[in-house]
């Protein structure tokens, strides 16, 4: 059995925090068996509250202060069921106690949110959890962009580039940009996508997609979207 496998929320603990003893005698009493797993005490003396300031100041993160750490968000989370290290309650906890090290250590999973809003819907204290997590993810992107999985980064950048440039979303163009950012342009002509592409060429949808156009005087809007002075 894996070390500490009986611990609830095992995914939140590092291996070296768990002490397992074959035979444990405390104060002369043999407590071997069920009671032989202990956690090391952690002392946290350096609080780094930059992330908290940043998140609560953001239009999408301002509800973070309502959190009572009940865990309803995580109980219903779509992603937590697939990736146990994805734990919205704990991300919020780490932000509020200033555990920048733990946030950075787990940055690669925070961007895996699927945006299903079960957490926000479950929250009894009106935390918009899905967007608070998004906000924490955005802060982490400024801290450790290199920790973002290449496919997630390509997705993030392709969407932004397409939306800012054209103001409308052409899905084939988006997919092409996404794949080329990953050096996977060949897949565009692979068997999976070729069939759909030929069908869309024949039935006229490809033309409609090419002619999607831009909104009127888009340059002004584009400026607003890309203006880095606007938080």
């Amino acid at each position, binding site marked *: 059995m894996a070390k500490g496998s009986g611990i609830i929320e095992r995914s939140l603990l590092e291996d070296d925090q768990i002490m397992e003893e074959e035979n444990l005698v405390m104060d002369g009493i043999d407590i071997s068996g069920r009671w032989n797993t202990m956690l090391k005490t952690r002392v946290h003396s350096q609080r780094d509250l930059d992330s908290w300031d940043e998140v609560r100041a953001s239009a999408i993160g301002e509800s973070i202060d309502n959190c009572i750490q009940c865990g309803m968000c995580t109980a219903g989370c779509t992603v937590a069921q697939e990736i146990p290290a994805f734990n919205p309650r704990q991300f919020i906890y780490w932000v509020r106690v200033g555990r920048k090290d733990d946030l950075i250590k787990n940055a690669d999973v925070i961007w895996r949110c699927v945006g299903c809003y079960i957490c926000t819907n479950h929250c009894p204290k009106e935390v918009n959890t899905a967007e608070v997590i998004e906000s924490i993810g955005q802060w982490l992107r400024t801290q450790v962009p290199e920790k973002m999985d290449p496919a997630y980064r390509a997705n993030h950048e392709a969407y932004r580039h397409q939306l800012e440039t054209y103001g409308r979303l052409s899905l084939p163009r988006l997919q092409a940009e996404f794949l080329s950012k990953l050096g996977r342009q060949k897949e565009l002509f692979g068997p999976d996508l070729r069939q759909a592409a030929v069908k869309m060429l024949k039935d006229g949808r490809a033309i409609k997609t090419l002619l999607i156009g831009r909104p009127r005087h888009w340059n002004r809007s584009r400026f*607003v979207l890309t203006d880095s002075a606007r938080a």
Partner: protein
Amino acid sequence: MKTAYFPGCSLKTIDRAYDVSTRVIAEDLGMTLVDVEDYSCCGAGELKGEGIKSHFLPARNLAHLINQGETEVMVSCNVCYHELSRTAYAVQKGGKNLEDIQAMLKDADEPLIKEQPTVRNTLEYLVNVVGLDTIAKHVKVPLTGLRVAPYYGCLYQRPAKMVSSVQIAGEDTEHPHFMHDLMAALGATVVEHRAETTCCGGKNLLSDERISGKLTGRILSTAKTSGADVLALMCPKCAGGLDALQFRAVGMVGDTAKLPVMYYTQLIGIAFGHRPEELHVGDMESGSLDLIRHFLAEPAIR
């Protein structure tokens, strides 16, 4: 009845099936749809991390709506519905966020949001405003014998505070039932299943094939093993994973994920007596056209 309508990028292009079927049934029901002019993308759920700027694209569309003299807009695409609802909710709450939204519109030379917009979902609009009795009266080809599994996904009923389906129409945010009711009114056999509101992972459709394949596989196989002939959905992003890329789900969980998928509006169109070609049923990639042709050709099962 004049109704403002926001189709969005996807429905204007590759998901024309959803747009056309919405328009066809609206016409049958005596609704005159007026498109929001000079639309832009809604943000597609991908700009949330930008903070207040995530409201800009939806706000631009809502400002155009108000400028056209309308305050209520009907939206078929669940992603657009979510984005526009989310911004309408921010407008309603007011305060600094609203001031910032208006400032962005001003900087972009766009009209400001001068009135409170209301965003309605086509499904809840059909059930709540048009009414099931009216819809039932238009049924020419009852879907008798067709086993339909409704699939709502996420953004039609979540988060409850922001969406008209719950706030205006009184939909149940945990167990939505309007699509069930609608399919029953068309004469279909409604197949209840446990994945009606589970997420398809659509946001990570490109970036995480494993998770999105697993989540879509679970939905399709749950519906199929519950006895469904067809999954009825209401979101083009869900359709991406459940229909167009169904082969991924099948690769992940096996043939139990092979199931025809259609927009619920297409099923209404069939029941209203339209041909599958009119409703672009052939655009679906999961064998839906064969299913419907078979259904229409075999009166015995009706």
